[in-house]
Protein backbone atom coordinates (compact mmCIF):
# COMPACT_ATOMS: atom_id res chain seq x y z
CA UNK A 1 0.00 0.00 0.00
CA UNK A 2 1.51 3.33 -0.99
CA UNK A 3 1.78 6.16 1.49
CA UNK A 4 -0.15 8.27 -1.02
CA UNK A 5 -3.27 6.42 -0.07
CA UNK A 6 -2.99 7.64 3.47
CA UNK A 7 -2.91 11.24 2.30
CA UNK A 8 -5.66 10.91 -0.27
CA UNK A 9 -7.63 8.58 1.90
CA UNK A 10 -7.85 11.07 4.75
CA UNK A 11 -10.61 13.08 3.12
CA UNK A 12 -12.46 9.98 2.03
CA UNK A 13 -12.44 8.61 5.57
CA UNK A 14 -13.78 11.92 6.86
CA UNK A 15 -16.51 12.00 4.25
CA UNK A 16 -17.62 8.47 5.07
CA UNK A 17 -17.70 9.17 8.79
CA UNK A 18 -19.63 12.37 8.35
CA UNK A 19 -22.14 10.26 6.38
CA UNK A 20 -22.34 7.79 9.24
CA UNK A 21 -20.29 4.92 7.82
CA UNK A 22 -16.73 3.59 7.98
CA UNK A 23 -14.30 2.27 5.39
CA UNK A 24 -14.87 -1.36 6.38
CA UNK A 25 -18.56 -0.93 7.08
CA UNK A 26 -18.32 -1.24 10.86
CA UNK A 27 -20.48 0.70 13.27
CA UNK A 28 -18.87 3.58 15.14
CA UNK A 29 -18.85 1.60 18.37
CA UNK A 30 -17.87 -1.70 16.80
CA UNK A 31 -14.45 -3.32 17.16
CA UNK A 32 -12.79 -5.42 14.50
CA UNK A 33 -12.44 -9.10 15.38
CA UNK A 34 -10.38 -9.58 18.54
CA UNK A 35 -8.32 -12.73 19.14
CA UNK A 36 -6.42 -13.42 22.34
CA UNK A 37 -4.00 -16.34 22.65
CA UNK A 38 -1.92 -16.87 25.79
CA UNK A 39 1.12 -18.98 26.66
CA UNK A 40 2.61 -18.36 23.24
CA UNK A 41 6.22 -17.91 24.45
CA UNK A 42 7.26 -20.79 26.72
CA UNK A 43 10.37 -19.06 28.08
CA UNK A 44 8.38 -16.05 29.26
CA UNK A 45 6.63 -16.21 32.65
CA UNK A 46 3.51 -15.01 30.90
CA UNK A 47 2.68 -14.16 27.29
CA UNK A 48 -0.15 -13.24 24.99
CA UNK A 49 -0.71 -12.57 21.33
CA UNK A 50 -3.56 -10.17 20.62
CA UNK A 51 -4.91 -9.39 17.20
CA UNK A 52 -7.48 -6.71 16.56
CA UNK A 53 -8.21 -7.01 12.86
CA UNK A 54 -4.80 -6.92 11.21
CA UNK A 55 -3.13 -5.27 14.18
CA UNK A 56 -0.98 -7.80 16.01
CA UNK A 57 0.76 -7.37 19.33
CA UNK A 58 2.87 -9.88 21.25
CA UNK A 59 3.38 -9.28 24.96
CA UNK A 60 5.80 -11.13 27.22
CA UNK A 61 6.13 -10.94 30.99
CA UNK A 62 9.62 -11.65 32.36
CA UNK A 63 10.29 -11.69 36.09
CA UNK A 64 13.59 -11.04 37.80
CA UNK A 65 14.71 -9.96 41.26
CA UNK A 66 15.76 -6.39 41.94
CA UNK A 67 15.62 -3.51 44.37
CA UNK A 68 12.24 -2.16 45.57
CA UNK A 69 11.32 1.50 45.58
CA UNK A 70 12.58 2.98 48.86
CA UNK A 71 9.09 3.85 50.13
CA UNK A 72 7.53 0.45 49.31
CA UNK A 73 10.18 -2.07 50.40
CA UNK A 74 7.94 -5.15 50.21
CA UNK A 75 6.24 -4.44 46.91
CA UNK A 76 7.08 -5.82 43.53
CA UNK A 77 7.95 -3.38 40.77
CA UNK A 78 6.09 -3.11 37.47
CA UNK A 79 7.98 -1.97 34.36
CA UNK A 80 6.17 -1.62 31.04
CA UNK A 81 8.18 -1.22 27.85
CA UNK A 82 6.97 -0.96 24.26
CA UNK A 83 9.00 -1.71 21.18
CA UNK A 84 7.53 -0.54 17.88
CA UNK A 85 9.75 -2.99 16.04
CA UNK A 86 10.32 -2.29 12.35
CA UNK A 87 8.65 -5.50 11.18
CA UNK A 88 5.33 -3.85 12.05
CA UNK A 89 5.34 -0.81 9.77
CA UNK A 90 7.42 0.90 7.10
CA UNK A 91 7.48 3.99 9.36
CA UNK A 92 8.95 2.21 12.40
CA UNK A 93 12.71 2.34 12.65
CA UNK A 94 15.15 0.35 14.75
CA UNK A 95 16.35 2.25 17.78
CA UNK A 96 15.26 3.31 21.23
CA UNK A 97 11.52 3.85 21.80
CA UNK A 98 10.26 7.12 20.31
CA UNK A 99 7.57 9.33 21.80
CA UNK A 100 4.79 7.15 20.38
CA UNK A 101 6.21 3.97 21.91
CA UNK A 102 6.78 5.78 25.20
CA UNK A 103 3.22 7.06 25.27
CA UNK A 104 1.87 3.54 24.75
CA UNK A 105 4.08 2.23 27.57
CA UNK A 106 3.02 4.94 29.95
CA UNK A 107 -0.68 4.69 29.18
CA UNK A 108 -0.64 0.90 29.59
CA UNK A 109 1.49 1.19 32.73
CA UNK A 110 -0.92 3.66 34.31
CA UNK A 111 -3.92 1.49 33.58
CA UNK A 112 -2.32 -1.51 35.30
CA UNK A 113 -0.75 0.45 38.14
CA UNK A 114 -3.71 2.64 39.03
CA UNK A 115 -6.21 -0.21 38.85
CA UNK A 116 -4.00 -1.92 41.49
CA UNK A 117 -4.80 -5.15 39.64
CA UNK A 118 -1.50 -6.78 40.61
CA UNK A 119 -1.07 -7.51 44.30
CA UNK A 120 2.41 -6.07 44.53
CA UNK A 121 2.48 -6.33 48.31
CA UNK A 122 3.98 -9.70 49.18
CA UNK A 123 6.22 -9.91 46.14
CA UNK A 124 9.38 -9.49 48.21
CA UNK A 125 12.13 -12.12 48.41
CA UNK A 126 14.50 -11.20 51.26
CA UNK A 127 15.87 -7.74 50.56
CA UNK A 128 14.84 -8.01 46.91
CA UNK A 129 11.47 -7.90 45.23
CA UNK A 130 10.11 -9.33 42.01
CA UNK A 131 10.52 -7.00 39.05
CA UNK A 132 7.68 -7.59 36.59
CA UNK A 133 8.82 -6.63 33.10
CA UNK A 134 5.92 -6.33 30.69
CA UNK A 135 7.36 -6.09 27.19
CA UNK A 136 4.98 -5.07 24.44
CA UNK A 137 6.22 -6.06 21.02
CA UNK A 138 4.10 -4.60 18.23
CA UNK A 139 4.33 -6.94 15.23
CA UNK A 140 1.77 -5.65 12.73
CA UNK A 141 0.41 -2.10 12.76
CA UNK A 142 -3.07 -1.53 11.43
CA UNK A 143 -4.21 1.03 13.97
CA UNK A 144 -5.43 1.16 17.58
CA UNK A 145 -2.10 0.13 19.07
CA UNK A 146 -2.94 1.39 22.56
CA UNK A 147 -5.97 -0.86 23.05
CA UNK A 148 -4.21 -3.88 21.57
CA UNK A 149 -1.15 -3.26 23.74
CA UNK A 150 -3.15 -2.81 26.92
CA UNK A 151 -5.18 -5.91 26.18
CA UNK A 152 -2.04 -7.93 25.46
CA UNK A 153 -0.45 -6.68 28.68
CA UNK A 154 -3.29 -7.69 30.98
CA UNK A 155 -3.73 -11.02 29.14
CA UNK A 156 -0.02 -11.79 29.59
CA UNK A 157 -0.17 -10.81 33.27
CA UNK A 158 -3.18 -13.06 33.82
CA UNK A 159 -1.15 -15.85 32.19
CA UNK A 160 1.98 -15.18 34.27
CA UNK A 161 3.47 -17.53 36.85
CA UNK A 162 6.12 -16.56 39.38
CA UNK A 163 9.12 -18.88 38.94
CA UNK A 164 10.67 -20.81 41.82
CA UNK A 165 13.61 -19.26 43.59
CA UNK A 166 16.45 -21.33 45.02
CA UNK A 167 17.51 -19.42 48.10
CA UNK A 168 20.66 -21.45 48.68
CA UNK A 169 21.99 -20.96 45.18
CA UNK A 170 20.46 -17.46 44.99
CA UNK A 171 19.12 -18.39 41.60
CA UNK A 172 15.80 -18.05 39.85
CA UNK A 173 14.66 -21.42 38.49
CA UNK A 174 13.24 -20.21 35.21
CA UNK A 175 10.91 -22.70 33.57
CA UNK A 176 9.75 -23.99 36.97
CA UNK A 177 6.63 -22.04 37.95
CA UNK A 178 5.91 -21.65 41.65
CA UNK A 179 2.52 -19.92 41.70
CA UNK A 180 0.37 -17.63 39.63
CA UNK A 181 1.15 -13.94 39.65
CA UNK A 182 -1.66 -12.53 41.83
CA UNK A 183 -3.82 -10.46 39.47
CA UNK A 184 -7.17 -9.51 40.91
CA UNK A 185 -8.69 -7.07 38.47
CA UNK A 186 -8.83 -6.64 34.70
CA UNK A 187 -8.28 -3.08 33.53
CA UNK A 188 -9.31 -2.50 29.91
CA UNK A 189 -8.26 0.48 27.82
CA UNK A 190 -10.66 1.80 25.19
CA UNK A 191 -9.49 4.50 22.84
CA UNK A 192 -12.11 6.76 21.33
CA UNK A 193 -11.14 8.58 18.16
CA UNK A 194 -12.75 11.75 16.87
CA UNK A 195 -13.23 12.08 13.11
CA UNK A 196 -15.48 14.68 11.47
CA UNK A 197 -16.73 15.48 14.95
CA UNK A 198 -17.93 11.90 15.51
CA UNK A 199 -16.66 9.47 18.14
CA UNK A 200 -15.44 6.04 16.98
CA UNK A 201 -13.83 3.06 18.68
CA UNK A 202 -11.00 0.90 17.32
CA UNK A 203 -9.73 3.14 14.54
CA UNK A 204 -7.80 1.40 11.78
CA UNK A 205 -4.53 2.79 10.45
CA UNK A 206 -6.31 4.40 7.49
CA UNK A 207 -8.82 6.01 9.81
CA UNK A 208 -6.04 7.28 12.04
CA UNK A 209 -4.74 9.40 9.17
CA UNK A 210 -7.99 11.37 9.56
CA UNK A 211 -8.00 11.41 13.37
CA UNK A 212 -8.61 14.78 15.01
CA UNK A 213 -8.03 13.74 18.61
CA UNK A 214 -8.28 10.65 20.72
CA UNK A 215 -9.11 9.77 24.30
CA UNK A 216 -8.06 6.57 26.02
CA UNK A 217 -10.13 5.61 29.04
CA UNK A 218 -9.07 2.65 31.13
CA UNK A 219 -11.75 1.16 33.35
CA UNK A 220 -11.82 -1.59 35.95
CA UNK A 221 -14.29 -4.38 36.67
CA UNK A 222 -16.40 -2.00 38.74
CA UNK A 223 -16.83 0.24 35.75
CA UNK A 224 -14.71 2.93 37.38
CA UNK A 225 -12.18 5.03 35.51
CA UNK A 226 -8.62 4.13 36.54
CA UNK A 227 -6.64 6.14 33.99
CA UNK A 228 -7.27 8.52 31.14
CA UNK A 229 -5.13 10.04 28.40
CA UNK A 230 -6.14 12.60 25.82
CA UNK A 231 -3.84 12.47 22.80
CA UNK A 232 -3.61 14.11 19.39
CA UNK A 233 -3.57 17.73 18.31
CA UNK A 234 -7.29 18.33 18.40
CA UNK A 235 -9.73 19.11 21.19
CA UNK A 236 -12.83 17.59 22.75
CA UNK A 237 -15.80 19.41 24.21
CA UNK A 238 -16.65 18.44 27.79
CA UNK A 239 -19.78 16.73 26.43
CA UNK A 240 -17.73 14.62 24.01
CA UNK A 241 -15.45 13.62 26.86
CA UNK A 242 -18.39 12.49 28.93
CA UNK A 243 -19.82 10.53 26.03
CA UNK A 244 -16.43 8.93 25.41
CA UNK A 245 -16.25 7.86 29.04
CA UNK A 246 -19.62 6.19 28.75
CA UNK A 247 -18.63 4.36 25.59
CA UNK A 248 -15.38 3.23 27.20
CA UNK A 249 -17.11 1.82 30.26
CA UNK A 250 -19.53 -0.08 28.05
CA UNK A 251 -16.94 -1.43 25.59
CA UNK A 252 -14.56 -2.20 28.46
CA UNK A 253 -17.17 -4.53 29.93
CA UNK A 254 -17.56 -6.37 26.62
CA UNK A 255 -13.87 -6.86 26.12
CA UNK A 256 -13.27 -7.84 29.74
CA UNK A 257 -15.51 -10.83 29.04
CA UNK A 258 -13.07 -12.08 26.42
CA UNK A 259 -10.54 -12.44 29.24
CA UNK A 260 -12.99 -14.25 31.46
CA UNK A 261 -13.02 -11.12 33.64
Amino acid at each position, binding site marked *: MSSDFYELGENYVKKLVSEGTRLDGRGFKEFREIKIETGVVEKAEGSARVTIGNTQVLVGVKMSLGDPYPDTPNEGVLIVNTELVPVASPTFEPGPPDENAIEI*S*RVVDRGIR*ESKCIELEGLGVGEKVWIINVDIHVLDHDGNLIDASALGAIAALLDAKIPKYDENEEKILYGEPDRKLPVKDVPVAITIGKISGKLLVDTSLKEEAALEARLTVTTNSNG*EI*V*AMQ*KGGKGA*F*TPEEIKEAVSISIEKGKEIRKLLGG
Partner: protein
Amino acid sequence: MKAGAPEKLIIDGKRLDGRGIEEMREIEARIGVLKRADGSAFFRFGNTRALAAVYGPRQLHPKYLQDPKKALIRCKYNMAPFSSYERIRPGVSRRSIEISKILTEALSQVVFVEEFPRAAIDVFVEIIQADASTRCAALNAAALALADAGIPMKDLVSSCAAGKVDGEIILDVAGLEDNYGEVDMPVAMTPRDENIVLLQIDGILTKEEFEKALDLARKGCKKVYEAQKAALKEKYIEVDEDE
Protein backbone atom coordinates in the same frame (compact mmCIF):
# COMPACT_ATOMS: atom_id res chain seq x y z
CA MET B 1 0.16 2.34 52.15
CA LYS B 2 3.38 4.10 51.38
CA ALA B 3 5.85 4.70 54.18
CA GLY B 4 5.66 8.21 55.60
CA ALA B 5 2.05 8.88 54.60
CA PRO B 6 0.17 11.29 56.89
CA GLU B 7 -2.97 9.97 58.55
CA LYS B 8 -5.24 12.49 56.91
CA LEU B 9 -4.81 15.04 54.12
CA ILE B 10 -8.02 16.94 54.82
CA ILE B 11 -9.00 17.89 58.36
CA ASP B 12 -12.25 19.74 59.01
CA GLY B 13 -12.53 20.74 55.36
CA LYS B 14 -9.05 22.24 55.33
CA ARG B 15 -6.07 20.80 53.47
CA LEU B 16 -2.62 20.43 55.07
CA ASP B 17 -1.48 23.79 53.65
CA GLY B 18 -4.61 25.48 54.95
CA ARG B 19 -6.49 25.68 51.67
CA GLY B 20 -10.13 24.84 51.22
CA ILE B 21 -11.28 21.96 48.99
CA GLU B 22 -11.78 24.14 45.92
CA GLU B 23 -9.04 26.65 46.62
CA MET B 24 -6.03 27.05 44.31
CA ARG B 25 -2.53 27.97 45.42
CA GLU B 26 -1.21 31.46 44.75
CA ILE B 27 -0.81 32.14 41.03
CA GLU B 28 1.81 34.37 39.48
CA ALA B 29 2.12 35.08 35.76
CA ARG B 30 4.58 37.36 33.97
CA ILE B 31 5.67 37.75 30.37
CA GLY B 32 8.81 39.05 28.69
CA VAL B 33 11.03 37.68 31.45
CA LEU B 34 13.92 36.76 29.13
CA LYS B 35 15.71 39.08 26.70
CA ARG B 36 17.15 36.71 24.14
CA ALA B 37 14.02 34.69 23.37
CA ASP B 38 11.41 35.82 20.86
CA GLY B 39 8.83 35.43 23.59
CA SER B 40 8.98 34.33 27.20
CA ALA B 41 6.88 33.90 30.31
CA PHE B 42 6.98 32.76 33.90
CA PHE B 43 4.11 30.94 35.60
CA ARG B 44 3.83 29.87 39.21
CA PHE B 45 1.36 27.73 41.20
CA GLY B 46 2.62 28.08 44.80
CA ASN B 47 6.06 26.46 44.81
CA THR B 48 5.79 25.13 41.27
CA ARG B 49 7.66 27.48 38.95
CA ALA B 50 7.86 27.24 35.17
CA LEU B 51 9.77 29.37 32.70
CA ALA B 52 8.95 29.23 28.98
CA ALA B 53 10.74 30.64 25.95
CA VAL B 54 9.61 30.72 22.34
CA TYR B 55 11.94 30.81 19.35
CA GLY B 56 10.34 31.23 15.97
CA PRO B 57 8.73 31.04 13.58
CA ARG B 58 12.14 30.06 12.23
CA GLN B 59 13.53 27.81 9.53
CA LEU B 60 13.09 24.13 10.21
CA HIS B 61 16.11 21.87 9.79
CA PRO B 62 16.47 19.21 8.51
CA LYS B 63 14.35 20.15 5.51
CA TYR B 64 12.56 16.82 5.16
CA LEU B 65 10.71 17.62 8.40
CA GLN B 66 9.19 20.77 6.88
CA ASP B 67 5.46 20.75 6.26
CA PRO B 68 4.62 22.79 3.14
CA LYS B 69 1.20 23.60 4.61
CA LYS B 70 1.98 24.63 8.14
CA ALA B 71 4.42 25.34 10.91
CA LEU B 72 5.62 22.55 13.17
CA ILE B 73 5.19 23.25 16.87
CA ARG B 74 7.85 21.60 19.01
CA CYS B 75 7.51 21.87 22.76
CA LYS B 76 10.27 20.53 25.03
CA TYR B 77 9.63 20.17 28.75
CA ASN B 78 12.65 19.93 31.02
CA MET B 79 13.13 19.84 34.77
CA ALA B 80 16.13 21.71 36.18
CA PRO B 81 18.37 19.29 38.13
CA PHE B 82 17.76 21.23 41.37
CA SER B 83 13.98 21.55 40.93
CA SER B 84 13.17 18.61 43.19
CA TYR B 85 14.44 17.24 46.52
CA GLU B 86 15.96 14.28 44.73
CA ARG B 87 18.26 15.73 42.08
CA ILE B 88 16.91 15.21 38.56
CA ARG B 89 19.54 13.74 36.26
CA PRO B 90 19.94 16.06 33.25
CA GLY B 91 18.68 14.72 29.94
CA VAL B 92 15.40 13.36 28.70
CA SER B 93 13.40 10.72 30.56
CA ARG B 94 10.39 8.71 29.47
CA ARG B 95 8.30 11.06 31.59
CA SER B 96 9.67 14.24 29.99
CA ILE B 97 9.27 12.78 26.50
CA GLU B 98 5.61 11.98 27.17
CA ILE B 99 4.90 15.40 28.70
CA SER B 100 6.65 17.17 25.81
CA LYS B 101 4.41 15.22 23.44
CA ILE B 102 1.15 16.13 25.13
CA LEU B 103 2.16 19.78 25.58
CA THR B 104 3.07 19.96 21.88
CA GLU B 105 -0.32 18.50 20.97
CA ALA B 106 -2.19 20.90 23.24
CA LEU B 107 -0.39 23.97 21.84
CA SER B 108 -0.79 22.81 18.24
CA GLN B 109 -4.54 23.17 18.67
CA VAL B 110 -4.42 26.94 19.32
CA VAL B 111 -1.65 28.30 17.08
CA PHE B 112 -2.56 29.38 13.54
CA VAL B 113 0.07 27.02 12.17
CA GLU B 114 -1.11 27.55 8.58
CA GLU B 115 0.32 31.06 8.67
CA PHE B 116 3.90 29.82 8.71
CA PRO B 117 4.34 27.00 6.21
CA ARG B 118 7.64 25.10 6.45
CA ALA B 119 8.58 26.87 9.70
CA ALA B 120 9.31 25.62 13.19
CA ILE B 121 7.96 27.25 16.33
CA ASP B 122 10.01 26.04 19.26
CA VAL B 123 8.66 26.27 22.77
CA PHE B 124 11.07 25.38 25.56
CA VAL B 125 9.91 25.05 29.14
CA GLU B 126 12.14 24.78 32.17
CA ILE B 127 10.66 23.67 35.47
CA ILE B 128 12.64 25.68 37.99
CA GLN B 129 10.94 24.09 40.98
CA ALA B 130 8.47 21.23 41.10
CA ASP B 131 5.60 20.88 43.55
CA ALA B 132 2.92 19.05 41.50
CA SER B 133 1.10 20.31 38.39
CA THR B 134 4.35 21.05 36.59
CA ARG B 135 2.80 20.15 33.24
CA CYS B 136 -0.06 22.58 33.89
CA ALA B 137 2.32 25.37 34.88
CA ALA B 138 4.46 24.56 31.84
CA LEU B 139 1.49 24.86 29.52
CA ASN B 140 0.30 28.11 31.09
CA ALA B 141 3.77 29.61 30.70
CA ALA B 142 4.13 28.25 27.16
CA ALA B 143 0.83 29.76 26.00
CA LEU B 144 1.85 33.14 27.43
CA ALA B 145 5.29 32.94 25.81
CA LEU B 146 3.66 32.25 22.43
CA ALA B 147 1.47 35.31 22.90
CA ASP B 148 4.52 37.34 23.99
CA ALA B 149 6.31 36.25 20.81
CA GLY B 150 3.43 37.66 18.77
CA ILE B 151 2.48 34.26 17.32
CA PRO B 152 -1.13 34.44 16.09
CA MET B 153 -3.36 32.20 18.20
CA LYS B 154 -7.01 31.21 18.10
CA ASP B 155 -7.14 31.22 21.87
CA LEU B 156 -4.88 30.83 24.89
CA VAL B 157 -4.47 27.56 26.77
CA SER B 158 -5.19 27.52 30.50
CA SER B 159 -4.43 24.53 32.63
CA CYS B 160 -4.74 23.27 36.18
CA ALA B 161 -5.30 19.99 37.98
CA ALA B 162 -8.17 18.58 39.92
CA GLY B 163 -7.85 15.44 41.99
CA LYS B 164 -9.20 13.22 44.71
CA VAL B 165 -7.78 13.26 48.21
CA ASP B 166 -9.23 11.55 51.28
CA GLY B 167 -12.28 10.74 49.16
CA GLU B 168 -12.96 14.37 48.24
CA ILE B 169 -12.72 15.97 44.82
CA ILE B 170 -10.32 18.89 45.16
CA LEU B 171 -8.73 21.58 43.03
CA ASP B 172 -4.97 22.04 42.44
CA VAL B 173 -3.27 19.02 44.02
CA ALA B 174 -0.01 20.01 45.80
CA GLY B 175 2.59 18.97 48.36
CA LEU B 176 1.83 15.73 50.21
CA GLU B 177 -1.42 15.41 48.27
CA ASP B 178 0.70 14.67 45.20
CA ASN B 179 2.38 11.69 46.88
CA TYR B 180 -0.43 10.36 49.01
CA GLY B 181 -3.64 11.46 47.30
CA GLU B 182 -5.84 9.08 45.31
CA VAL B 183 -6.15 10.83 41.97
CA ASP B 184 -4.33 13.49 39.99
CA MET B 185 -6.12 14.88 36.97
CA PRO B 186 -4.41 17.61 34.94
CA VAL B 187 -6.71 19.40 32.51
CA ALA B 188 -6.07 22.08 29.91
CA MET B 189 -8.69 24.11 28.12
CA THR B 190 -8.98 26.76 25.51
CA PRO B 191 -10.52 29.34 27.83
CA ARG B 192 -12.91 31.03 25.43
CA ASP B 193 -14.73 28.02 23.95
CA GLU B 194 -13.85 25.63 26.78
CA ASN B 195 -12.53 22.86 24.61
CA ILE B 196 -10.32 20.31 26.32
CA VAL B 197 -6.86 20.02 24.81
CA LEU B 198 -5.14 18.08 27.62
CA LEU B 199 -6.61 15.57 30.01
CA GLN B 200 -4.98 12.83 32.02
CA ILE B 201 -6.06 10.76 34.98
CA ASP B 202 -3.98 8.69 37.35
CA GLY B 203 -6.14 6.92 39.90
CA ILE B 204 -9.64 5.61 40.41
CA LEU B 205 -12.76 7.77 39.83
CA THR B 206 -16.35 6.89 39.24
CA LYS B 207 -18.01 8.53 36.24
CA GLU B 208 -19.83 10.90 38.59
CA GLU B 209 -16.65 11.84 40.43
CA PHE B 210 -14.91 12.39 37.12
CA GLU B 211 -17.61 14.75 35.93
CA LYS B 212 -17.41 16.67 39.18
CA ALA B 213 -13.61 16.87 38.92
CA LEU B 214 -13.79 18.02 35.32
CA ASP B 215 -16.19 20.76 36.28
CA LEU B 216 -13.95 21.87 39.13
CA ALA B 217 -10.90 21.88 36.85
CA ARG B 218 -12.83 24.06 34.44
CA LYS B 219 -13.33 26.62 37.19
CA GLY B 220 -9.62 26.47 37.99
CA CYS B 221 -8.69 27.00 34.35
CA LYS B 222 -10.82 30.14 34.34
CA LYS B 223 -8.83 31.54 37.27
CA VAL B 224 -5.62 30.72 35.50
CA TYR B 225 -6.94 32.50 32.43
CA GLU B 226 -7.65 35.63 34.49
CA ALA B 227 -4.03 35.65 35.68
CA GLN B 228 -2.78 35.10 32.15
CA LYS B 229 -4.88 37.93 30.80
CA ALA B 230 -3.65 40.22 33.56
CA ALA B 231 -0.04 39.41 32.68
CA LEU B 232 -0.63 40.19 29.01
CA LYS B 233 -2.46 43.39 29.88
CA GLU B 234 0.26 44.55 32.25
CA LYS B 235 2.83 44.30 29.50
CA TYR B 236 0.49 46.04 27.09
CA ILE B 237 0.02 48.90 29.54
CA GLU B 238 3.73 49.11 30.17
CA VAL B 239 4.32 49.33 26.47
CA ASP B 240 1.73 52.08 26.29
CA GLU B 241 3.38 53.97 29.06
CA ASP B 242 6.75 53.63 27.40
CA GLU B 243 5.47 55.29 24.27
